[in-house]
């Protein structure tokens, strides 16, 4: 059974989410503080995490970062805040989606099912090691190195890198990239792709002054430069 960890301090909101998910066949657990959320994420290994940004004992953004470092479970941000900055920041720190409260029960379920589909429908990893200059990508072990430096990538960043390195120098359109990484049912805007792409580039290109290894082909999409950071 799919296990959802609900991190929410408001009792009525937590009970609503719990009832909704259980009635739809999910197993749930809940945490009302950042500290207990980290403990439960570590011990229960949930399949999906719902995270309310406004917890009493810590900043939700910091918690999102900590949860991402603990594992690969998709994180959906629940926020009553209309503040775009919070949503973008959460996505930058590894959240997979967000839902603005008050949400409709059906929307929340649809979002959870969508992140699960995206997670589970990704093509099986190839054991082939890909070498592009000093960049080495190993999809089977979810590892990427530049020289001796291991890149610490989120699941989404790694999926983007894996898609781009499958055929170096071949342009991948934004649509094709979205479908490869998030699935065809993704319905967020281009800014989500932009945020993850910017994070990946920052990690790939750290310490170099030249053009990015990931080239933007204006009006078409992206391609991985075969000679690395030229």
């Amino acid at each position: 059974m799919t296990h959802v960890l609900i991190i929410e301090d408001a009792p009525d909101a937590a009970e609503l989410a719990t009832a909704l998910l259980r009635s739809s066949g999910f197993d749930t657990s809940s945490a009302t503080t950042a500290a207990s959320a980290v403990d439960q994420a570590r011990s229960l290994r949930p399949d999906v995490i719902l995270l309310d940004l406004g917890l009493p004992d810590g900043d939700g953004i910091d918690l999102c970062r900590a949860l991402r470092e603990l594992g690969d479970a998709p994180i959906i941000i629940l926020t009553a805040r209309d503040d775009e900055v919070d949503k973008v920041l959460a996505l930058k720190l590894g959240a997979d989606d967000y839902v603005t409260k008050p949400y409709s029960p059906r929307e929340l379920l649809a979002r959870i099912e969508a992140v699960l589909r995206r997670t589970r429908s990704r093509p099986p990893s190839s054991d082939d090691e890909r070498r592009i200059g000093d960049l080495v990508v190993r999809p089977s072990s979810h590892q990427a190195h530049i020289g001796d430096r291991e890149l610490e990538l989120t699941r989404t960043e790694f999926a983007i890198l894996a898609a781009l390195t499958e055929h170096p120098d071949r342009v991948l359109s934004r649509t094709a990239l979205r479908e490869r990484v998030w699935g065809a049912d993704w319905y967020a805007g281009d800014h989500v792709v932009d945020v993850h792409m910017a994070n990946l580039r920052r990690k790939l290109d750290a310490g170099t002054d030249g053009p990015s290894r990931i080239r933007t082909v204006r009006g078409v999409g992206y391609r991985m430069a075969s000679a690395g950071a030229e």
Partner: protein
Amino acid sequence: VSTHPDAEGTPVDLAALDELAVDLGSVEPVRSIVETYLTELGRRRELVLAAAAAGDIDNVHHAAHLLRSTSRTLGAHGVDRVAAELEAAPQPVDGGLLDRFEQVVRITVSALEGWISEGPASRS
């Protein structure tokens, strides 16, 4: 009090609870959620009034913000609307706004307690 599904202009739309019961497969979890909501509504009402009396506008905004989380899902549109005004209210909070807040909380509590005791079947 309205039972019309599109009645967002009314203080309480009890049809939202019926729809939620359909989503959850039963009316029982909705009763439990409404009971929890009523407890929280009372607690947050006290927080708003105490913070307003103390001139603590940040806590007025925070408590009002919490009120909005589930109010609309439970059809408490009046609470949601007044809480939105409180969330943006300048210091000092207008007395008329606080009066409207108290009034809409009373109406909401009465309507939801009625729904709990009578249930959706009695209105059909």
